């Protein structure tokens, strides 16, 4: 590849955003180039400027953004082209796919309509010819039954299929360069593997260069020829992918490479008391129905599940989206109506009402995935984390509550002065620490962790995993750890339940599940995850 021609070259690119607090520089004068047919990865954590670099190249910056420097595509500076000249390059010579397959297609037009539009625009074909081309593209990206799918609307397709359609649209005009901005981040792990395979296959067939913008080093290792590592708007390291992985130079690259959560959790002693037990738990949702609207559809989200969680144990609940894992977590905390038996300690709480549950709530806490949506933006951090105390320990004085807030913040590794500030002033990882402090301040016995690390960067994930482990050791906590991320589950849990469509397909001690998965679905999950993160296949 070394001899091939450079087709895109970014020189001294700076991206600034005007905000109410003044100008923010997101990209600080970087140089990147892409050769014909190669795969380049731009790697970095959130806020590194990796996406904005490519958005600037495509003139897709938000209206308050501004790019300077140059982005040369075959001798023409994209930043200074007129809109109509630029629109001959965008979608034709350079195209882009995005992180959000669910929302990146227009919900109001059929797949066929959306595919045909760019084909006609860039190639001047008539409607019938463009229709044929669109069908060919759908076959190329392996959409089953393409004739029928042409008439489908985006909401009738899964996330993986929508991403395939996005790829088809991007490839419609045989581009030189495909920019893929986190193309698999929002997808389930088995779908991720399929989309990555598809991209590799299409590159072999069509020979375009691919620019991967990603935080996922597994993808980089497997697909990229060359890598740029970005941090805070600067390229801190660049080179051949192999070299970066074998011999990273910059401290930040080394830190990224070491950020995979490691270690394992020993199971609790066999005679440890049972904290939470569910027997034949079932949750059924009713969809639709009503006056003259026919029978409602009954959806069994959790189907006959039994679970037994001991003190100081972590059970990992693994499954893809829609498998019912979060619903199970909520049902076990009696936040959703369910059938079956649920015991907390030695009490039967299967039918307990709100009054009965309230005093028990302090011992069973919940931490959510979304560190941005789960903290009230109008309360100070101190108010957020002490709110539970007002309910459960109403006799505490303001001073005592404040003291507890200081202790809780110290415990999760935050500066106690944080309690006088508001959630928006903190990063994702810090907010997740605040959410954990809010749970810990009540001194619970059981914490349900619903994808607590999924929205975080790898390096931050690792810190949160370590924090959760330390808290568990200090307080003999029991965790229900719900996640789709197998590497995190492997580091956190001593027992694993694999769920699919509301049922347990396999369960057992972590090491047994990982070393010798029995069920076909578990094997698929493992293969997909391990494929992406551990091996590099030569294409």
């Amino acid at each position: 590849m070394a001899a091939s021609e450079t087709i895109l070259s970014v020189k001294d690119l700076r991206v600034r955003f005007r905000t109410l607090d003044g100008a923010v520089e997101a990209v600080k004068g970087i140089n990147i180039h892409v050769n014909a047919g190669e795969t380049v990865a731009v790697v970095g954590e959130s806020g590194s400027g990796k996406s904005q670099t490519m958005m600037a190249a495509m003139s897709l910056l938000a209206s308050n953004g501004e790019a300077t420097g140059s982005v040369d595509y075959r001798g023409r500076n994209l930043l200074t082209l007129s809109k109509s000249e630029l629109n001959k390059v965008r979608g034709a010579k350079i195209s882009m796919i995005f992180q959000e397959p669910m929302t990146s297609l227009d919900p109001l037009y059929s797949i066929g309509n959306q595919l045909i539009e760019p084909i006609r625009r860039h190639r001047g074909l008539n409607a019938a010819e463009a229709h044929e081309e669109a069908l060919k593209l759908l076959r190329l990206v392996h959409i089953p039954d393409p004739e029928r799918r042409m008439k489908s609307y985006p909401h009738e397709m899964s996330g993986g299929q929508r991403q395939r359609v996005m790829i088809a649209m991007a490839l419609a005009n045989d581009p030189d360069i495909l920019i893929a901005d986190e193309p698999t981040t929002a997808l389930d792990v088995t779908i991720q593997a399929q989309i990555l395979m598809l991209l590799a296959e299409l590159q072999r067939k069509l020979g375009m260069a691919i620019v991967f913008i990603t935080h996922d080093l597994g993808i980089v290792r497997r697909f990229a020829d060359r890598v740029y590592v970005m941090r805070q708007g600067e390229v801190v390291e660049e080179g051949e992918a192999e070299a970066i992985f074998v011999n990273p130079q910059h401290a930040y690259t080394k830190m990224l490479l070491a950020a995979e959560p490691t270690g394992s959790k020993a199971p609790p002693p066999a005679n440890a008391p049972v904290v939470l037990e569910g027997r034949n738990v079932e949750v059924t949702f009713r969809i639709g129905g009503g006056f003259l609207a026919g029978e409602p559809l009954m959806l069994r989200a959790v189907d006959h599940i039994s679970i037994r969680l001991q003190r100081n144990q972590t059970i990992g609940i693994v499954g893809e989206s829609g498998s019912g894992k979060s619903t199970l977590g909520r049902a076990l905390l009696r936040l959703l109506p369910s059938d079956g038996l649920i015991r907390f300690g030695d009490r039967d709480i299967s039918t307990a009402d709100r009054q009965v549950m309230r005093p028990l709530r302090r011992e069973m806490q919940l931490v959510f995935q979304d560190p941005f949506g789960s903290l009230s933006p109008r309360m100070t951090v101190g108010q957020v984390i002490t709110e539970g105390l007002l309910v459960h320990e109403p006799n505490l004085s303001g001073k005592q509550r404040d003291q507890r807030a200081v202790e809780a913040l110290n415990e999760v590794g935050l500066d106690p002065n944080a309690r006088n500030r508001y959630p928006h002033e903190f990063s994702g990882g810090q907010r997740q620490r605040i959410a954990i402090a809010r749970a810990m301040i009540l001194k619970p016995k059981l914490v349900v962790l619903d994808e607590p690390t999924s929205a975080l960067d790898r390096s931050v994930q690792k810190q949160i995993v370590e924090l959760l482990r330390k808290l568990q050791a200090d307080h003999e906590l029991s965790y229900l750890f719900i996640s789709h991320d197998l590497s995190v589950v492997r580091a956190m849990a001593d027992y694993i339940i694999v769920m699919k469509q509301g049922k347990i397909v396999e369960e057992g001690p972590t090491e047994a599940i990982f070393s010798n998965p029995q069920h076909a679905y578990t094997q698929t999950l493992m293969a997909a995850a391990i494929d992406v993160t551990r091996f590099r296949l030569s294409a």
Partner: protein
Amino acid sequence: MLRYVLRRLLTAIPTLFVIVTMAFFLMRVAPGGPFNQERGLSPEIRANLEAQFGLNDPLWLQFVHYIGNLLRGNFGPSYNMPDFTVTELFAKGLPISVQLGASALILALMLGSVLGTIAALNQNKLGDYTVIALATAGSTIPTFVIAPVIQLLFGLTWKLLPIGGWGDGAFINKVGPVLTLALPQIAIVARLMRGSMIESLRSHHIRTARALGLSDWSVVVKHALRGAILPIVSFTGPAAAALLTGSVIVETIFSIPGVGRYFVDAALNRDYTLVMGTVVVIAIFTIVFNLIVDVMYAVVDPRVRYD
């Protein structure tokens, strides 16, 4: 879809019945009656009149009679305009009010959408501020100020339009009332459109459209506008019901023989049958337009399905 429309029309029947019942009894709670205010009406004559219209019957019997007549399409005679039945009054006045209201609505939807879109495309620039200023003015100046100003400027000073009157529906007579009716609606539509268009332009699929190199026209009109129009569609239902059933202020100021005036006049005069007629007409308009809006929603947005 057909099943859905049928179901909605069926559920409209009990809704209408509840509205009619409530209106009937609430009106009778108010003191006085249709023949109380006539001066010099001797008690005998009054008693005769009331007997003739069945106002001496027990209230429940009157209600049963009224519902019975209503089911046969008979709204009864007007008590204050004894030469006319309520049906005749509406047959004459409703087409006039509907014409004015529909014209005003169409004008408001078209002009408001265009202005809102212009504002959204120029967000926080001069074009945007101009539209917002106009829209704020349009929605804060009351109709009873706009109407006389139009009469004064266009009618008296420049002599371009007649000052008032229906003129047997001549176009020139409709301009003033339609403008007066439309202005506040244009303002509301423009503001709604601006907001939803700004949101629509920020959405991910618009980013996709731009990344595919589609023309500005296609990005804005084909992709952004169609999504942004949905809130306008929802607004149209209640707005249409309100506009098409006439406006007291506009019809009074411009001396238009529409039905808008009936509601107030009839209520003040305790003209029971006319009040009831107005209630039924407005209720039917509201129900029908809300149904049309919901059907339109499914036409614009393929995600909305009613089966």
